């Protein structure tokens, strides 16, 4: 029962975001600020994760494909599809749920507890529109870009690991990369990226916006928002795979 009450409150928050901005320029400024916060703030970790995830994929795929009947370039095919279908959107977004989600929840929670949200409301500003909407929109713009970057870097990482360790040559890897590529996989990757971006930004916003209490509660809501976001991402991941593949 509590789940449905929370879900209803969450949906009402999303609905309340849609109102005419008091000042477009200020909203644009906030949107750009959030794009920088989410995008630049998470860039480093995304680059590191992506390179290593691709490298590990290559090494582990090579370890499992021991049959001489299977051509070596198949390793690149497997790495490509694994990275595009699963690792880049899901793994990166799970990490972003921790990095970006906890930041959003604690920022809004702190604003709530220190009455800054009330101060904005008293000024006549729709705080859900001014504080929550730019975060969600920025995530919807920036996170898919990070996912595309992660996919690219994952493949580069895989190629580097493959060539440097002598598993397969660069030519073999490139051949496998182009063999049997289905553009639908890239489309599926983007559907996942947009879905997860919405989850990563809206769930922590909800937990932060409605926090009650003090510093301890901000920490708890931040942790809870990350846990709920991760579970929601995994649930959505399965749902999308079941529906779209």
């Amino acid at each position: 029962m509590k789940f449905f009450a929370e879900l209803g409150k969450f949906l009402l928050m999303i609905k309340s975001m849609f109102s005419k901005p008091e000042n477009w320029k200020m909203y644009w400024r906030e949107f750009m600020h959030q794009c920088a916060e989410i995008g630049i703030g998470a860039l480093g970790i995304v680059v590191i994760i992506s390179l290593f995830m691709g490298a590990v994929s290559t090494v582990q795929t090579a370890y499992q494909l021991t049959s001489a009947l299977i051509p070596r370039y198949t390793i690149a095919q497997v790495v490509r599809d694994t990275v595009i279908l699963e690792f880049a959107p899901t793994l990166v977004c799970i990490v972003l749920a921790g990095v970006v989600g906890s930041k959003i929840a604690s920022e809004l929670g702190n604003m709530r507890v220190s009455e800054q949200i009330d101060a904005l409301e008293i000024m006549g500003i729709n705080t859900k529109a001014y504080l929550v909407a730019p975060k969600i929109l920025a995530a919807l713009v920036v996170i898919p870009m990070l996912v595309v970057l992660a996919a690219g870097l994952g493949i580069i990482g895989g190629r580097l690991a493959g060539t440097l360790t002598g598993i397969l040559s660069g030519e073999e890897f490139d051949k496998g990369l182009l063999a049997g590529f289905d553009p639908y996989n890239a489309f599926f990757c983007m559907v996942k990226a947009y879905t997860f971006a919405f989850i990563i930004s809206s769930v922590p916003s909800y937990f932060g916006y409605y926090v009650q209490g003090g510093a301890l509660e901000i920490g708890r809501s931040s942790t809870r928002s990350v846990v709920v976001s991760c579970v929601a991402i995994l649930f959505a991941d399965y749902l999308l795979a079941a529906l779209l593949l």
Partner: protein
Amino acid sequence: MIEVKGVKKSFGDKTIINGVDVDLLPGICNLIIGSSGSGKSVFTKCLVGLIQPDAGEILYNGKDLVKMSAEDKKEVRKEIGMLFQGSALFSSMTVEENIIFPLDMFTNWSTKKKMDRVNEVLDRVNLKGANKKYPAELSGGMMKRVGIARAIVLNPKYLFVDEPNSGLDPQTSGLIDQLIKEITVEFNITTIVVTHDMNSVMEIGDHIIYLYQGEKEWEGNNKEIIFSKSKKLNEFIFASEFLRDAKDMRMLEETGKISNDRNMAQLTGRDAPTLVPPPSSEDQQDK
């Protein structure tokens, strides 16, 4: 002017505000006082529209805030300034950015005009030159003054002040009270102050509303409060022996009946304080 008619608010079975009627007048400081849990914070949040009352009317120049659409409410709120208990300054912004924020959001003024206005209000709250400081670099009193500057930067018609003296020393409290009083008169603002501070009650209490268990128990001004017959109010205001003595002395001053012990007993219900004669020159020489 804000007219409050029969405002009620309950949370579950617990009634917090039970039919409060009061007129909050412009150009004077309207003080809402009451002990913890008396409902003054909920009442104030109802007044500014942060909490929706269950019943009653809150009329801002005749327009009912309770029944207004969200858009109309936003328009009324543009005429409201509020100083929060913890000042509620945006911690990532400098003093200047905090104050210019409402101007950026609601005006199309040029940067120069906005900066002139920021400097004007900073000067008004005696914080000239603090533009580039962050809230973390300010003292409690300075944060309150920045909060006041931000609240008045759009020339509001209504100013709400929540516990302006909490966490401040008596001298700084006095300065903040004085500032609130001056601004109220200077700009003819309807000022509503929620406070526990008895110095504020006595210094700036032009119109005092005492709430007790969600109901208006007493209404008057700082002259009348010492003559109040309300037992609950007297217990709340004059809670210590020191304050009861201070009240007696004020009554003696006001009524001019310094030597008439029987009248004092009638008025206060207590014996007059013992007047100690000043030490004679002989006593001082003995020492």
